[in-house]
């Protein structure tokens, strides 16, 4: 099994604030890596660094063995191989659901309009959204919008999907429909890195759980190990607080 993503000693700071320090991570093909940790622990920044939306201060990032942290690399070419889903959906409000999904396949990947539409409709049917194809995003519920955002990132068949707290802006009922969609992707063998606060969901999909604290992974292992039998006192403290908040 080859490694899709490899992070080596990543360091990132915003001004004086050190957000990621000496962080290493390996994501093998067809696996899901779940990042947990308090807000501000660096989960989102890590995902944005992988997607080259932020540049790192030190370390290396490899995608399929190729170093993408090299400043000479074509960032558009790298992003073509990655999918990213955001906490706030970030759908394009002036485009219909179908246009949102087909923009990148047509303009970036050079697909014909018919081909892109057919593939988009196939994905929409699969996620039970075919009747929304011609609607504008603001007519959709939050859960529907987030599923469209997931389809949009899938439409270009990415090597790796990055999901940044994709359920944090949703109510508990809508959370479920989005998580079901992500579970489906997992069973399809999509390689994923997810940041989430949903511990139950993390248990279900994670091949590896990483607990981030002050920009570093202080504990990692299977969901069973990290979430149910944590060794590090910081992990224990975090999970205790999550438990008290009724999120486990």
């Amino acid at each position, binding site marked *: 099994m080859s490694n899709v993503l490899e992070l080596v000693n990543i360091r990132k700071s915003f001004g004086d604030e050190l957000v990621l320090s000496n962080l290493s991570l390996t994501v093998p093909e067809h696996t899901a890596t779940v990042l947990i940790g308090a807000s501000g622990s660096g989960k989102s920044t890590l995902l*944005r660094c992988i997607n080259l*939306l932020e540049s790192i201060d030190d370390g290396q990032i490899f995608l399929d063995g190729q170093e993408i942290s090299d400043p000479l690399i074509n960032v*558009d070419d790298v*992003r073509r191989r990655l999918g990213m889903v955001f906490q706030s959906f970030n759908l394009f409000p002036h485009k219909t659901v179908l246009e949102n999904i087909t923009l990148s396949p047509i303009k970036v990947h050079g697909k014909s309009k018919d081909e892109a539409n057919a593939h988009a409709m196939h994905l929409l049917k699969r996620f039970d959204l075919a009747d929304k194809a011609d609607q504008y995003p603001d007519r959709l519920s939050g859960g529907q919008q987030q599923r469209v955002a997931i389809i949009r990132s899938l439409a270009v068949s990415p090597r790796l999907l990055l999901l940044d707290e994709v359920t944090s802006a949703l109510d508990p009922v809508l959370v479920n429909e989005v998580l079901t969609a992500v579970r489906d992707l997992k069973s399809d063998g999509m390689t994923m890195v997810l940041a989430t606060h949903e511990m139950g969901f993390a248990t279900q999909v994670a091949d590896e759980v990483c607990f981030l604290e002050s920009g570093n992974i202080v504990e990692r292992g299977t969901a069973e190990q990290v979430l149910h039998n944590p060794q590090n006192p910081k992990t224990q403290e975090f999970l205790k607080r999550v438990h008290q908040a009724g999120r486990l």
Partner: protein
Amino acid sequence: MSEKQSSAWSPSSREIQRRKSRRAISRKQIGIAAASSILVLGTLLVILVTSPGWETVKATFFDIDYGKEVFPTVVKGLWINLQLTFIGGAAIGVIALGLALMRTTKSPALTPFRFLATAYVDIFRGAPLILIILLVGFGVPALGLRGVSSNVIFLGTVAVVLTYSAYVAEVIRSGILSIHPSQRAAARSLGLTSGQTMRFVVLPQAIRRVVPPLLNDFVSLLKDTGLVSILGVTDAVRAAQINASRTFNYTPYVVAAILFLLITIPLTRYTDRVIRQRTSAQNSEGAI
């Protein structure tokens, strides 16, 4: 299920009573508004017609027969203003968009253009339009450049276009800057280049957002085309001026003003409507 309920619903007696009260309130409000309007406008009218100089003013500004006589020449002049507005407007749109894009670009190859665009906007937004018209209208022919027309209509249009492009560029740029960075992040993470992101994601949203202020600028443009009359272009203002100075009767100015208003007032109302629609569409609390 909810549809079934709504078709079977008929208002309760309490609701019927409430509606009756609401109608009574609104009848009363309409009555108050009408009485107040008649009182205020009536008083103004009485003050106007009983003022000592009213007869002279009526004869020199509101001479209906003379107004009818000069009407065709003023309308012919207005046609020039309208042509100038539409031709100039198209040129302004293109140039302003180019300036706005230059000012927002981060491409290193375009750095000199960014500086030039900024300087351009600073100069033409900062100088009075009337000075630009005089400088272009009298300065360019003095240069004696071969191939450059010294037609005053052409030069007047150029001057207006130069100034308005700077204004409109700033409006478009503010629209571009108002698009949330998360939209850019989403587009870039889908692999779109920065140019594609601008063209397919940022610009379409930005333009929609600045349609109301652009319509405002369009109304101003129509009025400001009247300023090219100082170059001797026989537009509506100049046509009125010629007639007024021939007879010392100022009715032609009033005719020109009314003609401008006939175009600008509907345009302004339309702009207001567009703005209102935009705000209520973006506001979930639209009722307040």
